[in-house]
């Protein structure tokens, strides 16, 4: 008798492994997921359309790769150069601007390198390099890392030395590490806002330079390349995030009273 129950339980455990609803696969970045925006943004869409959005959060590089391989249906990432290449190479279609947040330089409360007084992001980085102050880098193919490299490039520097640590991890872990090491790091505002209460000893050291803008794009995977891609659902999703309602949800999303993202789509004129 015991064996029958065990066998029945086992069967029930194995069987429900396939889904019947339409599942739209969205590849996005870990920092986007960490910001907590997606459940809030996607819930009304799922209710309205009955489509389930499967969020696969990886680094920007991996998200683009998933798009190139056709394993997802729509991308939501923040790396304009990579996005443009993705479309130019024929893997993506119908790219739209969605929103932007910005990157900020966070660092130890006493700001040993004096980065707060810099006139631009590049200048702030240069001060850190000159002081050989500890700096933690994402060290992966993420949008944050790409932006960080762009700033170093603008400052005309190639960072190297024991003060410069490439972590190879997500934003949250890098922030925690910076807190522990009393180091500087470049972070997206959203992750910072959601974690700053836990990161004593760190503060926002530099912000506001338009160069630190972090714009997001949404792109559908090209159905000609991948006929099995859920193109119609992807277009519905793009419509939602760039719609008045969707943009409103984005604007109203906040952490601790602070708005994280600035919607961009509605400002575009056709």
């Amino acid at each position, binding site marked *: 008798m015991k064996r029958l129950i065990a066998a029945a339980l086992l069967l029930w455990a194995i069987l429900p492994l396939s889904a019947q609803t339409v599942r739209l696969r969205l590849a996005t970045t870990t920092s986007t997921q960490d910001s907590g925006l997606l459940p809030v943004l996607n819930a009304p869409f799922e209710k309205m359309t009955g489509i389930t959005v*499967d969020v696969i959060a990886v680094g920007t590089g991996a998200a683009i790769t998933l798009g190139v391989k056709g394993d997802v249906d729509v991308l939501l990432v923040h790396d304009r150069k990579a996005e443009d290449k993705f479309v130019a190479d024929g893997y993506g279609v119908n790219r739209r601007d969605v929103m932007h947040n910005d990157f900020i330089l966070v660092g130890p409360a006493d700001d040993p390198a004096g980065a707060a007084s810099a006139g631009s992001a590049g200048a702030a980085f240069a001060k850190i390099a000159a002081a050989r102050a500890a700096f933690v880098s994402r060290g992966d193919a993420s949008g944050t890392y790409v932006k960080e490299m762009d700033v170093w490039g603008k400052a005309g520097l190639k960072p190297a030395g024991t003060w410069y640590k490439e972590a190879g991890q997500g934003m949250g872990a890098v922030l925690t590490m910076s807190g522990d090491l009393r180091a500087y790091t470049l972070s997206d505002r959203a992750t910072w806002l959601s974690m700053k209460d836990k990161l004593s000893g760190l503060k926002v050291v530099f912000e506001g330079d338009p160069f630190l803008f972090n714009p997001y794009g949404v792109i559908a995977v090209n159905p000609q390349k991948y006929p099995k891609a859920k193109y119609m659902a992807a277009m519905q999703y793009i419509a939602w995030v760039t719609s008045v309602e969707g943009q409103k949800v984005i604007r109203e999303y906040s952490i601790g009273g602070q708005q994280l993202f600035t919607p961009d789509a509605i400002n575009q004129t056709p």
Partner: protein
Amino acid sequence: MRGPFGKALELLFTGDREVWFIAWTSLRISLSSSIIASVPGIALGVLVALRRFRGRRVVLAVLNALMSLPTVVVGLIVYSFISRSGPLGGLGILFTPAAIVVGQAVLGLPVVVSMTASSLSRLDPLFSEALTTLGARPGSILWMSVREARGPVLSSCLAAFGRVVGEVGVAMMLGGNIRGYTRTLTTAIALETSKGDFVLGLALGIILLAVALGVNGVLHSVVRHE
């Protein structure tokens, strides 16, 4: 000062639906993959142990090597097959629980084969001869040998379960850590840890341990009739 144990208990007993669902997903997926790996695994293990064939040593060496592959690598290999741009892309199982089951079955299979083979090679070599002389066919010999070595064979299945329930490379690569769908305890732990919430990560780890202990306990009590 709320530690991970406290957090774990709190998550389980305040009925945090998401945590229960994640634990259930982990259990379901890893049980399925262990069973799917065990059935051919035991049969192959018996064959490797009892039949002398050329290249037997090679097979055993390959099995041992497979067991030391990082799970991410196994995940990558299976991904290249089931990706939409891969040969089996048409099946469309990537980023579903089924994909994790497949990947974990690949992880568990060499464990079952290798451990079953080693436990069966400790059976008296004349045992299968005694069965043959009584008229047993190869199928019956296989079954009787497994029955004789029942304890170690079960251990091999549990070892496979242990390997897969605690792995994260395959689950992440092939499941995508999709909330409410393919998020398992291990991928959730990886996520929370990367977000910096170490306490939650540890708490989920404790829950994972409890799940593994539970499975071990249940199976050992069911097959206790020696």
